């Protein structure tokens, strides 16, 4: 009850009413504010200091009138012509009490009580002032002898109505200003959110790592939503839900892994049961779950991909307010939707990469089924080719392509008959001619995949020799595409240091010596120089320890080498 009163008091003592009461005082009308029940909310002295224009019983006077009226209704004519105290002092002679109901939102919230006893319009100066405030030409009044009429009851009725209108207008104006400010604040907040969503969209690159994206997101979001802590959780393996880790966070305090696990499980559970956002706090209703110490309010938004939950965006403890409101929740949901799109795309991109590499390896292992030498060999040639490409400072895309070129250089062998392919011992001239078709066959196989057309070129030319005595076309020097020259060197070198069906492996030094010997004839001399800059024994040890089973399990093993 007291709270309501205080609220009303602050509404009423608004600038609007204060200025009205000041105006009245200037006109010689002291006023007081009473609650509808007759309790004095502000007395006439608070504006004027002392008011010797009022008798000492003003409070009783006003209160009695108000109480006599009972519950004041807006249509009641509150005009009262006689002073209820029935005083005989000269100041009470011209009695008059005017009560103006103050209406806010269709309810009478207070009564403005004005004592008109002292209103004298015999003094032309105060009349002049009144006229100028009401924007009436006072000379008209004097001319038509209305001076005395101004003192009469009709004027007072008019005055009362005017006053009521003035108060209403002042209140409306005051309310408008308050509303404008509220709208302004709300608009400002919307701007912040819009800017945030734009920033998120701008930074959504499909090949950007989740850690980077979410880190930036948390930093930007925490300021706008004013939470104490933000956490982004993702399951460790996006296909199974073995464990969960914190991908990014902002704010304090650090949360224990066990707590993160619990947050994840509750989010997922809630999402599956109710398909919704888990919002919990004890402000409007008791907690749904029991939460450990630092958590006071919490909003957990799941990130969906089809029917699975692929992540969670969690906000903990609103700062500056007791709880998160619906605006905060809506913002979190919008942001989470953007994140889900990003995460979905990132996973798809990941899946595509895996599919591509997996398919290529499947292709090369189909040859392994016939020729066990080729599979491990292709992988090693791929790695050597990639190393050379890195040394040449080619672009990331070109380096990647060189890896594929090495991997696929002998794919044409699938078109060579087993008789020739698996023959132990030397090949006859005829058989050799057949073998020489494998670069062309390989290039034809790969021709259909336009994304790796450079790879096809490498496959076609990996048996060309720098001096032009190679096959199939006898290209020479820089007419041989760079990719072909690279694979040629990688291929030959690995062949030398591997066991073949027709000879055993050469020792490393001998192989290096051979490379130097044929630099300029078989091999591109620039590439030879680059190759020799490596610590070859170490490099070879590294690549030979990669075995193919490892690669099938983790296709990106090669890239992290």
């Amino acid at each position, binding site marked *: 009850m007291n709270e309501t009163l205080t609220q009303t008091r602050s509404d009423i003592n608004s600038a609007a009413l204060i200025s009205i009461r000041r105006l009245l005082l200037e006109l010689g009308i002291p006023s007081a504010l009473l609650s509808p029940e007759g309790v004095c909310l502000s007395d006439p002295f608070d504006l004027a200091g002392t008011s010797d224009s009022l008798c000492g019983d003003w409070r009783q006077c006003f209160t009695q009138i108000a109480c006599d009226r009972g519950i004041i209704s807006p249509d009641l004519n509150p005009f009262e012509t006689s002073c209820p105290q029935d005083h005989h002092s000269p100041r009470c002679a011209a009695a008059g009490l005017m009560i103006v109901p103050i209406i806010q939102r269709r309810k009478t919230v207070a009564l403005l009580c004005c004592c008109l006893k002292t209103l004298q319009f015999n003094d032309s100066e105060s009349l002049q002032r009144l006229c100028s405030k009401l924007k009436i030409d006072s000379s008209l009044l004097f001319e038509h002898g209305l001076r005395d009429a101004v003192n009469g009851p009709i004027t007072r009725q008019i005055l009362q109505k005017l006053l009521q209108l003035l108060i209403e207008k002042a209140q409306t104006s005051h309310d408008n200003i308050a509303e404008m400010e509220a709208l302004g604040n709300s608009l400002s907040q919307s*701007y*912040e959110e819009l800017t945030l969503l734009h920033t998120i969209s701008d930074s959504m690159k499909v090949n950007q790592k989740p850690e980077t994206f979410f880190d930036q997101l948390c930093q930007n979001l925490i300021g706008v939503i004013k939470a104490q802590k933000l956490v982004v959780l993702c399951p460790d393996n996006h296909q199974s839900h073995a464990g969960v880790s914190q991908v990014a966070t902002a704010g304090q305090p650090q949360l224990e892994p066990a707590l993160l696990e619990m947050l994840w499980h509750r989010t997922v559970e809630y999402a599956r049961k109710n398909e919704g956002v888990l919002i919990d706090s004890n402000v409007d209703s008791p907690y749904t779950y029991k939460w450990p110490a630092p958590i006071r309010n919490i909003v957990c938004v799941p990130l969906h991909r089809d029917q699975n939950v692929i992540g969670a965006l969690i906000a903990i403890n609103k700062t500056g307010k007791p709880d998160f409101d619906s605006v905060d929740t809506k913002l979190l949901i919008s942001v989470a939707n953007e994140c889900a799109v990003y995460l979905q795309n990132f996973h798809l991109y990941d899946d595509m990469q895996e599919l591509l590499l997996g398919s290529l390896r499947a292709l090369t292992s189909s040859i392994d089924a016939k020729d066990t030498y080729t599979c491990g060999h292709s992988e090693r040639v791929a790695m050597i080719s990639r190393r050379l490409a890195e040394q040449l400072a080619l672009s990331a895309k070109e380096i990647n392509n060189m890896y594929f070129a090495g991997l696929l250089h002998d794919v044409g062998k699938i078109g060579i008959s087993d008789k020739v392919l698996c023959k132990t011992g030397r090949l006859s001239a005829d058989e050799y001619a057949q073998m020489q078709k494998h670069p062309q066959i390989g290039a034809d196989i790969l021709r259909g995949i336009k994304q790796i057309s450079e790879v096809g070129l490498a496959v076609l030319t990996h048996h060309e020799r720098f001096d032009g005595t190679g096959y199939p076309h006898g290209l020479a020097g820089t007419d041989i595409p760079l990719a072909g020259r690279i694979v040629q060197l990688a291929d030959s070198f690995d062949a030398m240091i591997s066991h073949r069906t027709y000879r055993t492996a050469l020792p490393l030094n001998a192989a290096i010596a051979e490379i130097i010997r044929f630099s300029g004839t078989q091999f591109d001399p620039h590439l030879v120089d680059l190759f020799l800059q490596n610590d070859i024994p170490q490099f070879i040890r590294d690549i030979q320890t990669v075995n193919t089973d490892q690669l099938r399990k983790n296709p990106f093993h090669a890239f992290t080498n």
Partner: protein
Amino acid sequence: MNSLKKVLVADDEVHILHVVSLKLRNGGYQVITAQDGREALELAQVEKPDLIITDYQMPFLSGLELCRRLKQIPATAQIPVIMLTARGFSLDNNVMTSAGILTCVNKPFSPREILLMVDDILAGAPV
């Protein structure tokens, strides 16, 4: 009252004027507003604000033209300017320096960041 720094905000979009004024007033600055380039030019000369925030696209006088004119008047040549531009639009650095524009901000912008920027500039920190 005289110790409060004065900011002139010019934009033909009234809601932007409203949002920026509210934010800056709450941040302790005096704010005067203009709805077009001509009004902004007049106000800048009369009020001599400590900082100007202006939109690029405005009736009568563009934000850029406004800055150039102000640069030519000794009384207003030193006033720093923040320019509000549409997303994707940017001004050449030379153009900006010669017109006295400290920085460009894309719309929609974060009102919070605008306030921080104004605080920095008027406190003397480099932007």
